[in-house]
């Protein structure tokens, strides 16, 4: 099907059919790769522009992986934000402000905010993985592509990050009480 697309559809139409449906995913990932929304929007625009220019030579297979590669390269080239220092605390705080959690959660009374505060304390490498997988909902393979690491590394970092977040939540020092 991918090869058929390349042969029979004009690049412009191919862009509309394959790339446009991925815009919201690109925006979520770009936000994780950027300091703020404007920077994220710029990264998405640059990614779309590069994708448009090269779609004529794209075989139509694995479009999301192709777009993530373009975005990663665009981000690296611009040196706006060096990987893996994804999603600074300011970004997580903005998530924390708007997040709403189900009342039945049992870990504590304000789990969403606590989880976000715990995640914000992770090292950049662990923060990057848990953000891409749990916030942006990428697969391990997609996260590995963005971070330029093997899938096994994504898995081990994810395990470590979740274990640490859980330990912090269990320790109960995430309610903004630095003295605990």
């Amino acid at each position, binding site marked *: 099907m991918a090869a058929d697309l390349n042969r029979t559809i004009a690049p*412009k139409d191919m*862009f*509309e059919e394959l790339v*446009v449906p991925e*815009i*919201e995913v690109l*925006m*979520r990932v770009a*936000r994780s790769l950027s300091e703020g*929304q*404007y920077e*994220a*929007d*710029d990264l*998405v*625009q*640059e990614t*779309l*522009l590069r994708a*448009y*220019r090269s779609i004529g030579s794209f075989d139509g297979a694995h479009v999301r992986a192709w777009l993530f590669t373009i975005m990663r390269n665009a981000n690296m080239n611009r040196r706006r934000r060096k990987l893996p220092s994804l999603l600074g605390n300011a970004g*997580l705080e903005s*998530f*924390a402000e*708007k*997040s*709403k*959690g*189900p009342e039945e*959660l*049992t*870990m504590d009374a304000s*789990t*969403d905010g606590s*989880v*976000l505060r715990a*995640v914000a304390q992770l090292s950049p490498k662990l923060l990057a993985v*848990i*953000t891409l*997988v*749990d*916030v*942006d*909902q990428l*697969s*391990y393979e997609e996260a590995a592509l963005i971070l330029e690491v093997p899938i096994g590394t994504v*898995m081990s970092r*994810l*395990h470590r990050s*979740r274990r640490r*977040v*859980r330990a912090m*939540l269990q320790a109960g020092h995430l309610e903004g009480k630095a003295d605990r």
Partner: protein
Amino acid sequence: MLEMLRRKGGLNCLEVARILQSYLDAEPGKYSVESVANHLQECRRCGLEASDYRIMKASLASAGQSVPEDSLQRIREFTAKLISEGPDDPSDAISSES
């Protein structure tokens, strides 16, 4: 300690610990979904751990669900222009900072 032992031919706690994240993320792997599910149901400690991870995942997923409407609109306009008029000078793409 008893939980560390293999349960009736199923997985033991250490085996589940190694694959739990992949299982929770529905990632493919060399494990039986049913075996993991059975262990989590039978083993209180592993079951609670999995439950905590699910809560964490849900919290983070809810934090990242939406993109700002004005940004989405701006990107959609950019995309429509790109499709209808083609790419301009590369520097034109970086417009939202101004």
